[in-house]
Every structure is written in structure tokens, then in C-alpha cells.
């Protein structure tokens, strides 16, 4: 039995277990902290910064920061909302996110976060970068236009599938996902049942022959905002 730890999120007392991160404890308590790169079951690395909260006055990523007795966490504040909005805005302009024909639309976590944050207008000029599409694999295609570099596929392929199909190459604005093969995705040992084929939060890694199966109105985020399932745990 691990030790119970009491701390507060936005002035509300939350009880968690020793060793939990702020995000895990908040999830159990039914408090939604927006997140993008984090996924249950993968090693969190705090790279997207969407889950940034203010811990005892300092910004920390909730997915990596362990809870401690008596800590005060700010989550739902206008400043943090603005900060999260800016990150989402920048992710949209950095890639080519054409939602209207994207297979992931309606089930996309990036889009869902934008909806939840109420983003109607873009804030910045669009980059319209040139990106590659790899459709060589029989079951899966990779569209880097929509990649947000969350690293979920890298982690899942390395730690769960034990294959290491994906990794990052390049730095800064030139950073991108590459496949572990001489040429294309078809030359890797990626299989459709792999965890890595399932974790993409956006429409970057897609399973072929499965598109547009769910009608508009019945998709994951059509009616309820992302995070509602966590907030519903709250008594």
C-alpha cells in the first residue's frame, strides 16, 4: 500500500498515491489537465508542453512531475489556457492540417484540443511546409504533413512492439519522423497489429481501408469535448 499524498489543484484538495505524476492523480480525481503527447502506457517525456501547470509558482509538465505533499497546482487559469492555445495554434501552422479530408477528423486529439479551447481563428501566418507521404506499406500509410512530433509512435515501437520502426531525425524546424529502413515504410517490419500503428493522436499514421467508417455526429469528439470522460469520473 503506497503512501497517500494530499495536494491541491486550483484550490481543490486532491488525494493521490506516492509515485504518481500530477496528471495521473488528477485523472483519478476527475480533473482534466489538457495533454497531447502523453499516452497511458507509454513513458511520458513532457515534450508537447500542453499539460504545463504551475506547481508552487513554477511551470512544470504535469505528465512528468511527481506529486508531493502539500503542493499547490494551478491548471485551469486564463494564462495557462492562453499558453495551451498558443501551442495548438503553432502546431496547426507548422504542418499542413487539412481537416476536411483527413481520415482522423473527428477523432483527432489535436483538433479536439482546438475545439475544447474554442479556437476559431488562426493567430499566426501559415508555413505550408513541403512534407512527405509514405504509402508504400500494404496496410499503413505515413503522412508527415500532419505529424506533430509527439513521439508516441517512437516510444510504442521501441518499448512495446520492441521493433524500433520509427525515430526522430534532424533538429529544430527540420526535425521529423523517419522509418528504420533503407527506403520506405514497406521495408520495415511494422505490422498492422503493432501498438505503434494505433497511437498516433493525429492523422499521420493511418490504417488503410478503414477510413470514414464512422459517420459525422458519431465520432469521438463530435458531441463531447476531449477530456469529458475524465471529468465524468468526478463525483
Amino acid at each position, binding site marked *: 500500500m503506497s503512501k497517500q499524498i494530499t495536494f491541491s489543484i486550483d484550490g481543490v484538495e486532491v488525494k493521490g498515491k506516492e509515485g504518481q505524476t500530477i496528471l495521473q492523480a488528477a485523472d483519478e480525481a476527475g480533473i482534466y489537465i489538457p495533454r497531447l503527447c502523453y499516452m497511458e502506457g507509454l513513458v511520458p517525456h513532457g515534450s508537447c508542453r500542453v499539460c504545463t501547470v504551475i506547481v508552487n509558482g513554477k511551470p512544470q509538465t504535469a505528465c512528468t512531475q511527481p506529486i508531493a505533499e502539500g503542493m499547490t497546482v494551478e491548471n485551469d487559469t486564463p494564462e495557462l489556457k492562453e499558453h495551451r492555445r498558443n501551442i495548438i495554434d503553432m502546431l496547426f501552422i507548422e504542418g499542413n492540417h487539412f481537416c476536411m479530408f483527413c481520415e482522423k477528423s473527428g477523432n483527432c486529439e489535436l*483538433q479536439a484540443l482546438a475545439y475544447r479551447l*474554442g479556437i*476559431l*481563428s*488562426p493567430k499566426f501566418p501559415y508555413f505550408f511546409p513541403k512534407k512527405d507521404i509514405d504509402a508504400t506499406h500494404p496496410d499503413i500509410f505515413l503522412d508527415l504533413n500532419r505529424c506533430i512530433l509527439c513521439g508516441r509512435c517512437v516510444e510504442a515501437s521501441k518499448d512495446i512492439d520492441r521493433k524500433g520502426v520509427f525515430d526522430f531525425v534532424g533538429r529544430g524546424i527540420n526535425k521529423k519522423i523517419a522509418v528504420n529502413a533503407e527506403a520506405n515504410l514497406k521495408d520495415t517490419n511494422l505490422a498492422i497489429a503493432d501498438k505503434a500503428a494505433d497511437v498516433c493522436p493525429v492523422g499521420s499514421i493511418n490504417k488503410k481501408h478503414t477510413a470514414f467508417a464512422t459517420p459525422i455526429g458519431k465520432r469521438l469528439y463530435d458531441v463531447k469535448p476531449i477530456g469529458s470522460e475524465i471529468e465524468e469520473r468526478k463525483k
Partner: protein
Amino acid sequence: MSKPKIATASLAGCFGCHMSLLDIDERILKLIELVDFDKSPINDIKEFTGRCAVGLIEGGCANEENVHVLQEFRKHCDILVAVGDCAIMGDIPAMRNNIPLKECLEEAYLNGPSIHNPEKVIPNDKELPLCLDRVYPCHEVVKIDYSLPGCPPNADIIWQAVVAILTNKPLDLPYELIKYD
């Protein structure tokens, strides 16, 4: 007092957003009680007849005429609304944005698989508006006051937004109406 005026334009768009505007069905009768239509493809008025309260813009700027029309709208309208994803981020027309314009024109008029063009001429009549190097979202050309996303935006979101603007109410749109597709 005379009614406020509304103007609409379709730039580099498909007219889908205008179709969605007409999709407000019988509420169009209420709309006519609220506003008079000025320059718009719906009534085919070509030039502004005066100051407008609201301008609805569909589509981004793909050629110099689009830019001219958009600037005219900014000049004549108190509130300018980017309606639909093309106006907001360029959208389908903007898929050419990371391909050089020359390559696009050559593909369309010289090299495409179904092209019959024995003279090998890319249209260059001076009556034709010049294509821009890329498609520009409206907010990169003039100041935009509100955006209504969607491809096309639902008729309800257009209706609620236009009514809110005309009646000086805050734009408080329900979650289910905000869609990027």
C-alpha cells in the same frame, strides 16, 4: 431607420459556404427582416452601394482579383467575417502552396495526362487575373474580425454568428457547432 447592410463574396472557394448560408432555410425570411443584401453573388449586385455592417468572405486569395475584392470588403464593411476553412487557412486551393506556381501551371495546361493543348500555351490574356505565388488565407491579407470554421460551416453557426453580430450580442457558439471539417 434603414436596415443595416450585409455583403458576401466568394474568393478562391467552391461556393459551398454560400450554399451553407442558403441552408438556413426559412430563417432567410428573418434574415431579410434584419438586413438588406448589398454586393453579393446571391443578388448579383457587383459594386458596393454604401457602407455595410457585415461582410462575409468565403475563400482565400489565389489571384490578384481576390486580393482586390478582399481589400474592397475591408474598406466597406464594419465587421469582416472569414467564413469557412478556405478563408481561414487557404484549404484545398492552398494544397498548391508548397509546389512552385510554374510547376502547377505546367501540370494544368501542358503536362497533365488529359491535356490537349497543341499550341502549348499557358493562358496569359491580360483580362485574366494573375495567379499569386501561393494561396493566402484572408487574415494574412487584411484584418479579419471573426472566423467561422468548417468545410463548409454549418448553416446554424453562420446563422447564430450573423444574428449575434447584427444584434450586438457576444459570439457564444456551442461546442457541437465548431468543426474544422
